[in-house]
């Protein structure tokens, strides 16, 4: 059974911690919003996008969701604004302050 993260905050009692600190379940890091790390974010200009998807594999933070072979808007809850995708786009469909 998947662990209930709501009981595992930093104020949790030792009795509430999962046995052996094992977390049953997957991808619980989604609850941790690394998007707060940076103010500067890439902008997705959908009208310029050709859906080539070259921005998808280069994202270190899995922040470019793909559905039905098309990329969607950035996951700003987690995007750290590294700017790699800006350089990977051949069509100028991603812009970010400070990245040419």
């Amino acid at each position, binding site marked *: 059974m998947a662990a209930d993260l709501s009981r595992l905050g930093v104020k*949790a009692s*030792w*009795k509430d*911690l999962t046995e*052996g600190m*094992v977390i049953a*379940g997957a991808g619980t890091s989604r609850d941790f919003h690394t998007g707060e790390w940076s103010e500067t974010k890439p902008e997705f200009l959908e009208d310029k996008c050709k859906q080539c998807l070259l921005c998808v594999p280069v994202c270190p933070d899995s922040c470019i969701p793909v559905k039905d072979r098309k990329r969607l808007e950035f996951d700003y809850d987690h995007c750290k604004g590294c700017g790699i995708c800006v350089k990977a786009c051949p069509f100028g469909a991603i812009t970010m302050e400070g990245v040419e």
Partner: protein
Amino acid sequence: MGKRERLSGNEAVAIALRQINPDVFPAFPITPSTEIPQYFASYAANGQVDTEFIPVESEHSSMSAAIGASAAGARSLTATSSCGLAYMWEELYIAASNRLPLVLALVNRALSGPININCDHSDSMGARDSGWIQMYAENNQEAYDNMVQAYRISEHKDVRLPVMICQDGFITSHAVENIELLEDEEVKNFVGEYEPENYLLNPECPIAVGPYAVTDYYMEAKRAQAEGMRHAVQVVKDVAKEFASLSGREYGLFEEYCLEDAERAVVMIGSAAGTTKDAVDKLRADGEKVGLLKIRLFRPFPAEEIAEALKGVKAVAVMDRAEGYSNQGGPLGADVMAALYRSRSEALAVNYVYGLGGRDVRVEDMEDVFAALKQMRQDQDPGETYRYLGIRE
């Protein structure tokens, strides 16, 4: 029904493992435990077990692989001695903190240096704070019986901690003695099927093992781990009781030998307890009120029960087959003396370091210890509380 055999301690433990038929056994040879994986490899080679035997390239890897296998949901174990245990040191802590059921067949041997292949307890004593349950044997029968009980303790839902089953190098591991074995079916039924709760190979729910924990969590994690140790005492007793109904052989947290009315007592671990029993018998025949407390469960340490058992004793010698380099004695001495102090005991107590690197302990040596206790009582003074037994000055 049991069957009588003549076996070395290593073969007895290997047979227990064959009867248990664990899932994964990674191992690396080191004297004097080498025979355990050797015997087991031949069982695997002849189809007597369907265990995955993994001959790894080091002890660090044998414990690492055993941890991986246990986390994956398999019943696993390894065997080692001395420097092999030292080499897997960090892994001992990881196995325990992950709350992994796991067994280590330890054959006690001196740690280097100088390099020495014979018995003392410096290897396992150094691991006493690693979070493992430690059980010790006096002879091959006890080593076998402890191994049969090991997984029941380790896998118990209130415990889920690794267990170290210790026997004395060469003295127990290689000496052939009479032994009574259980039938294969009896062991299989006693140990039962392993049914892990959360495990890596659970198709219903993936898990993540071995996190980074910040300060907010670390201390709570260690406290939660200690809870398993607190439960272990009762579980060890319960499993022993069930084992007694199967085998007729009774075990507790420790053995009391002529202790009931004893005024002087020795507390010790392992094979030298047999020698001490001979000394006790001899002195008892002369009307002397002497006795022995032989530790079976060293971690967790049954301090209250030991203090209770020593209640009537006026003078105690705690025997350590390991140095502590505290200038006070060894680890067992520290624990027993603390237990006596906490129980407000007024017994005089001394701590002997003995038997290092296979140094022989004779009946006369133990008689000398009892004589020293007698002197202490007469003087009402323990004198030097940190002593060496059988050392050339």
